[in-house]
């Protein structure tokens, strides 16, 4: 059960990453590679600030803002300096590697026995259970710390999902979605599409950094390598979500992304449990995304072939 709760918690935390990527990859159709860097950026900043004694909440918020900044830089490289979108992302991601090292001062910052954003909830739970260290959940003993982490991730995730879905249905959000759909049309409506791209990337990377901040607090450390492959992770989650519930409607897309992330995390936890070498994890993820991308086309191809054959017969 601890494993499941853990998977759920990480899934929820990474949902913020996936939601951020939902904005860049799906809403404005921007292949944004900054993600790998901005996740670490969020983690690094929070770790360093918390270690320096800042309040976890404040540290997390700073991480969010830093992520937004990173996203804006990518956006500006793309819109202002007309650098290809992938290259813009790569440039910022690469630069962030050094920035992150600078922030942390070394490649790893541990956060042992420091406060996290789930601390208030932990206190609350402790009070409710009269200082017990475990809570009984469906007959399982779950540590209060883990329960608090889970509940606070759930809360944060729900709040952000709700805000995001509301935001995307405002005038501004509508325009943002249209930017990915038809730039020409958006410009004809008097909208500065470049500004929309910059803003979307900022928001997206803000969420990614937030996810990184929470992840660092949950894991108890920030590592300069922790962002590597996160973009593919997020993409895999989005794809699973779309396969699960489809993408018609904003609410559905958001819910799907969250489910997808959690499910993907669970799958990985199970795979690891069954003896998958953690070093192979990224390869397996990449393979999975590859399959998810080509399978629909491949199925169509086979379908057509079969149809042709049956016609000839």
């Amino acid at each position: 059960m601890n494993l499941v709760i853990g998977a759920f918690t990480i899934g929820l935390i990474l949902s913020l990453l996936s939601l951020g990527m939902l904005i860049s990859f799906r809403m404005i159709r921007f292949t944004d590679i900054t993600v790998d860097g901005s996740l670490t950026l969020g983690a690094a900043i929070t770790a360093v600030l918390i270690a320096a004694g800042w309040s976890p909440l404040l540290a997390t918020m700073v991480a969010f803002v830093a992520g937004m900044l990173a996203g804006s830089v990518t956006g500006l490289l793309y819109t202002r300096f007309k650098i290809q979108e992938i290259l813009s992302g790569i440039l910022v991601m690469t630069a962030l590697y050094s920035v992150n090292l600078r922030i942390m001062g070394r490649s790893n910052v541990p956060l042992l026995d420091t406060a996290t954003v789930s601390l208030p909830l932990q206190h609350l739970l402790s009070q409710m259970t009269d200082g017990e260290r475990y809570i009984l959940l469906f007959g399982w003993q779950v540590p209060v710390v883990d329960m608090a982490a889970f509940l606070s991730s759930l809360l944060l995730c729900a709040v952000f999902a709700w805000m995001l879905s509301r935001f995307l249905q405002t005038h501004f959000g509508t325009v943002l979605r249209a930017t990915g759909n038809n730039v020409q049309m958006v410009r004809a409506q008097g909208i500065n599409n470049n500004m929309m791209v910059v803003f979307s990337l900022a928001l997206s990377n803000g969420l990614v950094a937030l996810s990184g901040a929470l992840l660092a607090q949950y894991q108890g450390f920030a590592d300069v390598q922790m962002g590597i492959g996160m973009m593919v992770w997020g993409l895999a989650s989005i794809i699973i979500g779309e396969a699960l519930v489809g993408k018609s409607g904003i609410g559905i897309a958001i819910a799907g992304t969250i489910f997808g992330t959690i499910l993907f995390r669970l799958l990985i936890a199970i795979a690891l449990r069954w003896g998958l070498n953690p070093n192979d994890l990224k390869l397996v993820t990449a393979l999975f995304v590859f399959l998810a991308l080509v399978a629909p086309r491949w199925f169509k191809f086979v379908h057509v072939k079969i149809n042709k054959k049956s016609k000839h017969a």
Partner: protein
Amino acid sequence: MLEIKGLIKTFFPHTINEVKALRDIDLTIQEGSFTAIIGTNGSGKSTLLNAIAGTFIPDSGSILLAGQPITFWPEFQRAKLIGRVFQNPFAGTAAEMTIAENIVMAMRRGLSHPLSKAVTSKARAEIKERVSVLKMGLEDRLDNPIGTLSGGQRQALTLLMATWLKPKILLLDEHTAALDPKSAAKVAELTKYIVDKEKLTAMMVTHSMQQAVDLPDRIVMMHKGKIVADYQKEHKQRVRIPDLLATFDRVQKKELFDESVATLLREQYV
């Protein structure tokens, strides 16, 4: 209303691919007039419309729209003054978004897009009412993605969106060319209806001589980046399709008239 002076645009200047798309265009469009622009392929019709809409900045010349010098305004800034419908029915709407969402954007063309709910029930009622003018039954499908509509329906909606807020000028670039004959006729009719009813100032590029003769009250003919004929007022009323074809023919004949023809006629014409 619209005053264009000495407009010049050359694509790929000083290369072998140099195209003089606009050569010194002077054009004044009166308020409330409906002008058709006709001309051969590549004569610069779309380029002229794009110059007005701000897709690019001209090499020289000036554009004054509704008293505002818009020559160097970025495209999105001009959208406040300009409504556009493109040839491609997919160009004017966001396919994956619903009819209502698309229209809501058009309702605030050139205005700010605040953080308030976009498709409110009030907006919905207004959309329903105006969409029903199209008589396409779309008022009952406001929550369907626009991508599920036919080209004709999309083009009709785009037209409606472009004129939702009265533009200073409406630019139509072969907006019926990609439609089947029946839809094209319907959209043409709708164009005339909306332009008349809202008393719009409009420019329409078309390859349909019939449309050029039927819909507008002025016909401008372009060739090789220049205006070669301009039928206005009573001249426009007299113009029939054969006259337009004859003018096309004459312009092309003039082109075939090269040095060798000059030499020939100098010897042969008496």
